[in-house]
């Protein structure tokens, strides 16, 4: 059984990636939302390059956070509705690892595209290219954290009425530390301060979320099929 665990996780990932490719419009939705929401800020704030450059880190981070929320509702919801969640649990894979595989799938289909779109959005807002490395490193850690915490929250509200409304209320407060450190690192980089400690704190947050979120999510999945 132990030998089969990696093979089963890859099988779940393959399945989810294949589904994401077949339903391309759903997958692109989050990225398009990210770019559109980011593009609204210059329209609302006025075209002052100095102001936009100053606000760019915050805008990119908040938009990424909100965009990553969009597909969370369906992450486990679709599995519960068509009975696939039962079958996933019957594969003999521990529920926490099923949750971890789904979180990885969420990152690959949402986090990674957001990461790729973040560069162009940041350039559009006039962020200096020198801080691009900090932005992308921070967002790499940040999107991973979002997938883990988002996946946990999605499994906790699974089966609840109006889970879709509850989900952002659960996820957004939990991800504020990531937002604070990520945007602070960028701020520091723009003002020429040391941005290392902020990214390290972001890394520590990820290190804590990596084992804890799948465990909580696994319990949520068990409870959802009861």
């Amino acid at each position, binding site marked *: *059984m132990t030998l*089969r665990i990696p*093979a*089963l996780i890859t*099988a*779940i990932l*393959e*399945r989810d990636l*294949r*589904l994401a490719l*077949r*339903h391309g419009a759903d997958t692109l939705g989050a990225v398009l939302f990210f770019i559109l929401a980011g593009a609204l800020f210059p329209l609302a704030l006025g075209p002052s390059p100095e102001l936009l450059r100053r606000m760019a880190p915050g805008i990119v981070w908040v938009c990424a956070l909100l965009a990553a929320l969009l597909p969370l509702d369906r992450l486990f919801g679709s599995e519960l509705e*068509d*009975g*696939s969640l*039962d*079958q*996933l*649990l*019957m*594969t*003999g*894979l*521990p*529920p926490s690892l099923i949750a971890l595989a789904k979180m990885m799938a969420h990152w690959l289909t949402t986090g990674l595209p957001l990461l790729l779109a973040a560069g162009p959005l940041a350039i559009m807002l006039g962020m200096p290219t020198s801080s691009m490395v900090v932005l992308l490193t921070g967002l790499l850690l940040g999107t991973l954290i979002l997938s883990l915490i988002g996946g946990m929250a999605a499994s906790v509200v699974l089966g*609840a*009425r*109006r889970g879709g409304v*509850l989900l952002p209320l659960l996820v957004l407060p939990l991800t504020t530390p990531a937002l604070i450190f990520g945007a602070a690192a960028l701020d520091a980089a723009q003002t020429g301060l040391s941005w290392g400690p902020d990214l390290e704190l972001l890394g520590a947050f990820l290190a804590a979320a990596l084992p804890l979120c799948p465990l909580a999510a696994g319990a949520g999945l*068990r409870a959802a*099929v*009861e």
Partner: protein
Amino acid sequence: MPCPHHRPIARRISVIPAFTPPGRPLLEVENISVFRGERLVLDRVGFTLGAGDALLLTGPNGAGKSTLLRVLAGLHKPEGGHVLWSGVDALADRTQHAGRVAYLGHQDALKLGLTLRENLTLAARASGGNPDLCMESLNISGLADLPARMLSAGQKRRAALARVLLAQAPLWLLDEPSLGLDINTMGLLGTLFAAHRQAGGIVIATTHVPLPLPDARTHALPGLNESDIPQPLEDFPEDDLL
């Protein structure tokens, strides 16, 4: 029964492995009790089944047949009672128990965007079984590369049954397996049941129609008493329930 131009039965059922029958009853179900909200759905249900046995769960709608299957599959934790597999508490480690069970739920659990073969990949990876042989056993090989959304209800049911076969598990828990199946497939199902039981496997099925399970025992669940039916409250605080 299968048409002459199809492969012989022996070839088709070769996907079913043999399970070694132990000395004592393979499956012992003791005093299972389940509450749904305030209502007692299952009240001290118990039975024992040996290798090769089959059990039909009958009873009116809402009697708890599906719930009992989910308890036996380890998907639902009962409020009381035990499920013993070869004398060992099966529900103590539900992840391990999943390896002994092939569960067919009320839903077919197919992803409509994936082809039939892709839908079976995960189950094949879990059990190490051969999906092509299992699809052949249910006469759906020709549909293997079609997206599941193009299949009819009966074909989807056959795909779900192929997954049961693919699990290569000794305990089959089937929630209305005959749903949407045509006469030919029912015959096929009878052959598969017989082969599974001959190999020492157990079949437990809920049904409202006769299934091709000769000398299967029947366990009738009593269903609701009038007094057990919860009365709707006047001002039910619906908004407080999530």
